């Protein structure tokens, strides 16, 4: 008595928000995706160039020994440390890459929500709303594919 159970339908949960808030979501999503994407690119670049760094470090180490800055056993220790760092430089892309993937997906999710909101907003004309819906669907597709597969690749042969 006194209370009324209101059945919430699925479409009530859809991200219907005003144009201004949806634009904020779009910008926020883009910023997050760009930020994590940049971090991933930096991480990949470090991993790709790890061996060149190792060669420079080894040469510097050998020259330091030849100049008498330290002895043979310090030289050996520095080689071992350089090896460890080199392996970490190659491996860090796995850790950073997975974190970045989560970050990019969160960013893309915000963009999808924003585009869905645009598509559901009757202030836009029919044609624009259809484009927004297609964009939201495409981004959602990208999120789903990159969740289950490592990447989307288009091969031209």
């Amino acid at each position, binding site marked *: 008595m006194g209370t009324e159970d209101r059945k919430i339908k699925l479409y009530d949960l859809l991200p219907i928000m005003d144009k201004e808030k949806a634009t*904020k*979501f779009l*910008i*926020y999503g883009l*910023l*997050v995706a760009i*930020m994590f994407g940049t971090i991933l690119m930096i991480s990949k670049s470090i991993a790709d160039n790890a061996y060149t760094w190792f060669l420079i470090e080894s040469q510097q180490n*050998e020259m330091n*020994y*030849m*100049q*008498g800055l330290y*002895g*043979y*056993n*310090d*030289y*050996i220790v520095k080689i071992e440390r350089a090896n460890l760092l080199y392996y970490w430089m190659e491996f860090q892309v796995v850790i950073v890459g997975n974190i970045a993937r989560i970050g990019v997906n969160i960013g893309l999710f915000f963009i999808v929500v924003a585009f869905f909101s645009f598509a559901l907003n009757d202030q836009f004309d029919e044609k624009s709303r259809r484009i927004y819906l297609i964009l939201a669907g495409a981004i959602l597709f990208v999120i789903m594919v990159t969740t289950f597969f490592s990447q989307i690749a288009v091969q031209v042969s």
Partner: protein
Amino acid sequence: MVKTNKFLKKKTAYIILGIGAICLILGPIFGIVLDKMTIYDSKPEIIREDSADGMTKAFAFPVTLNRDQKLIIEISDFYPNSSVTIRILAKSVYQRAYSLNSTTSGVTGLQFVYSEFGYGTTPAGSTNGANTLTLPASGIFFYIEFMGDRTGDSLISWPGDYYVVVYGSNSGPPSNLNVLFDIHIKVDGPGEALYNTFILIGVLIILIYLMVALISVLKANYLR
């Protein structure tokens, strides 16, 4: 206009980023300064000729080594008529020889490696092992590394107490009894550990601040 919170105030930002930058600067400084710690430096060190006859007269410097800590000795003999021999003894061996005033040359030293630096040879090719070295007969300058024992040119860490022992003779006139040499004794310091710690702390401070700052800007401007 971009909204900010108090965490992003200019003064707070300067303080936090400043602490991060200080850590990044202090790391390499500590790394270089404290990489090796000089525990004894004497130019010249003067001993007497009778240092070869009894351990009580020989130059002896005590050193305690921790696990994975290295002892480095730079010894040279550029003085006329002086000839010196260097050995590294375990504390127990030295104390026994000292109490008996044993002949210094009769006590066997522990194994160490020494490097003869120069371009054109590989580091392994210019490093040798020994348990005693005589200057200037074997060379005028030696860079010695010691950890307790060695296998080939690599050192084995035996943490414990040791003595660096030097004795010598003078080939000059009989009245000249002094034996001179230069010696510089160093041990591995906490430089590397401090370097890594400070760099890690500095990078973490800056990264965490930038992340928190970015999130707070986004929250203040786009997520309300």
